[in-house]
């Protein structure tokens, strides 16, 4: 099968690029990875004018220049370097912000690849009084221009026809952009070197790449760009050094001359309104970013999101859990007893349940994020809260994911996609699991009820309230401290500057939002779900094998691999105040933290594993070390809770961080640092507490 002709869809963030892509392709997008980098390659096959084309959604950027391999994808895709050459490119531009959007459009056009400009949000621009002369824009840029309103589906048919025409053309020799003679000579010198080395064949492509090299390469090899022949890298840096010695700034010369061209075009094709536009957005912003009202609205919106994630997802989760239990019961009743049935019930069905149970929270969170982002408010959230987040090295966009972490780390990690800079995104992902998620609650509740007397009070507060408050406080402090530390160590480097566009307020389209929620849920089910399922089966095997001739589930568990592992790690965890039985619970909790409770119930031979954990509490209270000392002293209880706050006791989190970071090294790093942190903190609590004579009672 010959590969299909490729059409790239490029554009600024907030230009409606993805909406155009979705409108062109329907719900048939296919997600893969670009070779060597961890960027999703979203593509779909579309029949246009009787010919199948592969449409590829490029990441949204303001320019083609790059510092990292991730950013390099855009230029490599355009020029077909290590990737197939495109037949045509759609550049989506915001009709009301042509003065900025055309910058990237003319960079793309300069490569000589046939271009279609989608003049998007043209209704909004028209309402604000902007009139764009499309014929003149087409004449001045050499690209076909189509007017679209992607959220309503307007202009999509025309756009398809234009794509068909463009893809049938051959790459042209776009005339070079007018630049100062000195820098034009620099570019020409590099261009001929590229052509001589036959890295690229077409002069326009070579010129575009020469310009890109001059803008992107960094002196001390500080960039992380790949696939650039060493001779060309050397030549580029020589040219840059020569210019610097002459007191010139190559970046400025290139970018300023491109903008000169943009300004000339805009001057000729845009009729501006007499009054500055966006008055409606300005009025809304006067309230929403106001010191007092803005903060109040902000707090209310965040509370609603938070509350919804916690409580609205609850009924759906309950339905899924009882559904899974029902299927397990039905399978147990119909299938013959045996190891295979056990695998099906407690490995596969339970594993699928472990995956599906996250869907309500992921769906809800992305519904809210869609609502906030498409309405324009998410950018204001970042604007309002950036100052606070920056004090620990995070940026304003990390706020919503961090807050969602209180509910569940899985959707929260996925929500970090709204963070533009990859370093900032990784940082947020790595500290997020420290936020105390709702699955830790049953553990706090069980331990608090076990080790403290029911009526105990500290001042006028019940001990339960104090413990809960202390655990949440610890989790926030730990997350923020970890962020500050990681920013200075593992994720060091010049933080990307905050360049945050505040788009005009818009009414979100339900269709677009529903589509995006579905895409996120699907990405989770395919990307992370498979890993969660596999890990569930592995854990099931650890807890059930090798088989022994024992009637009680507790005996079986004690002799299983997990039971032996619990015994094996006892010397390591005894200084934290935990015996091997707690160790087995901790191992079991890796499936999901709340499983800690049911695993303990088995290991302590508690028959009922219903909602009532009274018998388990009694068993825990009565439990002793071999020498007769009480196991669950208040101090051991606090140590255990601290461990649960800080440890990465959740394989689903690891699976989703692997999915979102694209490598195993970051989730494993996260597991390692959180385990060390949890171990150290629990050790300190138990050892210092014991020395001070606390918690012996």
């Amino acid at each position, binding site marked *: 099968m010959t590969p299909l002709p490729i059409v790239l869809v490029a554009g600024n963030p907030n230009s409606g690029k993805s909406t155009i892509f979705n409108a062109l392709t329907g719900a048939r997008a296919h997600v893969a990875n670009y070779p060597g980098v961890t960027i999703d390659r979203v593509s779909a096959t579309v029949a246009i004018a009787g010919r199948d084309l592969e449409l590829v959604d490029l990441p949204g950027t303001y320019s083609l220049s790059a510092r990292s391999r991730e950013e390099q994808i855009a230029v490599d895709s355009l020029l077909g370097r290590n990737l197939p050459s495109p037949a045509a490119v759609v550049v989506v531009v915001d009709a009301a912000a042509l003065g900025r959007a055309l910058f990237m459009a003319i960079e793309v056009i300069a490569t000589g690849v046939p271009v279609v400009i989608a003049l998007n949000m043209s209704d909004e621009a028209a309402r604000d009084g902007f009139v764009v002369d499309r014929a003149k824009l087409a004449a001045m840029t050499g690209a076909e221009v189509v007017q679209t309103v992607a959220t309503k589906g307007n202009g999509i048919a025309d756009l398809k026809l234009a794509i068909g025409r463009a893809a049938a053309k051959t790459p042209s020799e776009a005339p070079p952009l007018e630049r100062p003679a000195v820098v034009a000579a620099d570019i020409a010198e590099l261009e001929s070197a590229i052509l001589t080395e036959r890295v690229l064949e077409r002069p326009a492509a070579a010129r575009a790449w020469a310009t890109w090299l001059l803008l992107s390469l960094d002196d001390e090899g500080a960039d992380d760009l790949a696939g650039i022949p060493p001779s060309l890298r050397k030549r580029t840096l020589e040219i840059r050094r020569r210019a610097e010695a002459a007191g010139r700034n190559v970046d400025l010369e290139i970018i300023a001359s491109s903008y000169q061209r943009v300004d000339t075009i805009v001057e000729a094709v845009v009729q501006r309104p007499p009054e500055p536009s966006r008055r409606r957005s300005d009025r809304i912003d006067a309230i929403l970013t106001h010191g007092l009202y803005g903060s109040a609205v902000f707090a209310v919106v965040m509370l609603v999101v938070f509350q919804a994630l916690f409580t609205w997802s609850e009924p759906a989760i309950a339905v899924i859990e009882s559904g899974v239990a029902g299927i397990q019961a039905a399978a147990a009743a119909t299938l013959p007893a045996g190891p295979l049935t056990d695998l099906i019930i407690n490995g596969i069905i339970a594993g699928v349940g472990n995956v599906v149970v996250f869907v309500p929270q992921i769906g809800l969170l992305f519904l809210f994020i869609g609502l906030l982002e498409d309405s324009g408010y998410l950018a204001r959230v970042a604007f309002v809260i950036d100052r606070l987040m920056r004090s620990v090295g995070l940026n304003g966009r990390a706020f919503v994911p961090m807050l969602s972490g209180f509910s569940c780390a899985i959707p929260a990690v996925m929500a970090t996609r709204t963070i533009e800079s990859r370093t900032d995104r990784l940082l947020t992902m790595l500290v997020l699991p420290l936020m105390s998620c709702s699955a830790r609650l049953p553990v706090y509740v069980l331990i608090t009820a076990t080790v403290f007397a029911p009526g105990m009070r500290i001042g006028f507060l019940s001990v339960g309230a104090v413990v809960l408050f202390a655990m949440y406080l610890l989790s926030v402090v730990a997350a923020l401290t970890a962020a500050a530390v990681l920013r200075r160590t593992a994720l060091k480097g010049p933080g990307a500057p905050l*360049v945050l566009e*505040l788009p005009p307020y818009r009414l979100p389209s339900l269709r677009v939002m529903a589509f995006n929620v579905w895409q996120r849920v699907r990405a989770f089910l395919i990307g992370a779900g498979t890993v969660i399922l596999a890990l569930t089966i592995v854990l099931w095997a650890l807890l059930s094998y090798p088989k022994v001739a024992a009637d009680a589930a507790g005996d079986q568990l004690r002799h299983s691999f997990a039971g032996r592992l619990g015994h094996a790690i006892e010397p390591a965890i005894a200084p934290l105040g935990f015996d091997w039985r707690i160790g087995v619970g901790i191992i079991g909790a890796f499936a999901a933290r709340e499983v800690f409770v049911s695993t303990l119930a088995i290991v302590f031979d508690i028959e009922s594993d219903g909602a009532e954990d009274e018998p388990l509490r009694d068993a825990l209270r009565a439990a002793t070390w071999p020498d007769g000392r009480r196991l669950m002293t208040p101090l051991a209880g606090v140590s255990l809770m601290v461990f649960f706050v800080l440890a990465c006791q959740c394989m689903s989190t690891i699976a989703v961080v692997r999915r979102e970071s694209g490598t195993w090294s970051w989730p494993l790093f996260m597991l390692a640092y959180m385990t060390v942190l949890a171990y150290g903190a629990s050790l300190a609590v138990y050892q210092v507490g014991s020395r001070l004579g606390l918690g012996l009672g």
Partner: protein
Amino acid sequence: MTRKHGSLAALPVGGTAIVSRVRGERAVVRRLLEIGLVPGTQVTLRRVAPMGDPIELKVRNFALSIRRSEALGIEIE
């Protein structure tokens, strides 16, 4: 409002000026230039976030927010 060799960070809310130069680390400067803050461009400081940072600019008919640390490197006249 005209200032000589002032910094954008010192512009009062509502003030308008022309960018004359952008200084700072290369990657940051390049980013600011690419988003349209090239010398000769008119900018208006529209508002300041409730905690004093970042700031919101109007440039090329769109609203752009940057931090004061970056605004300090943008010279205006």
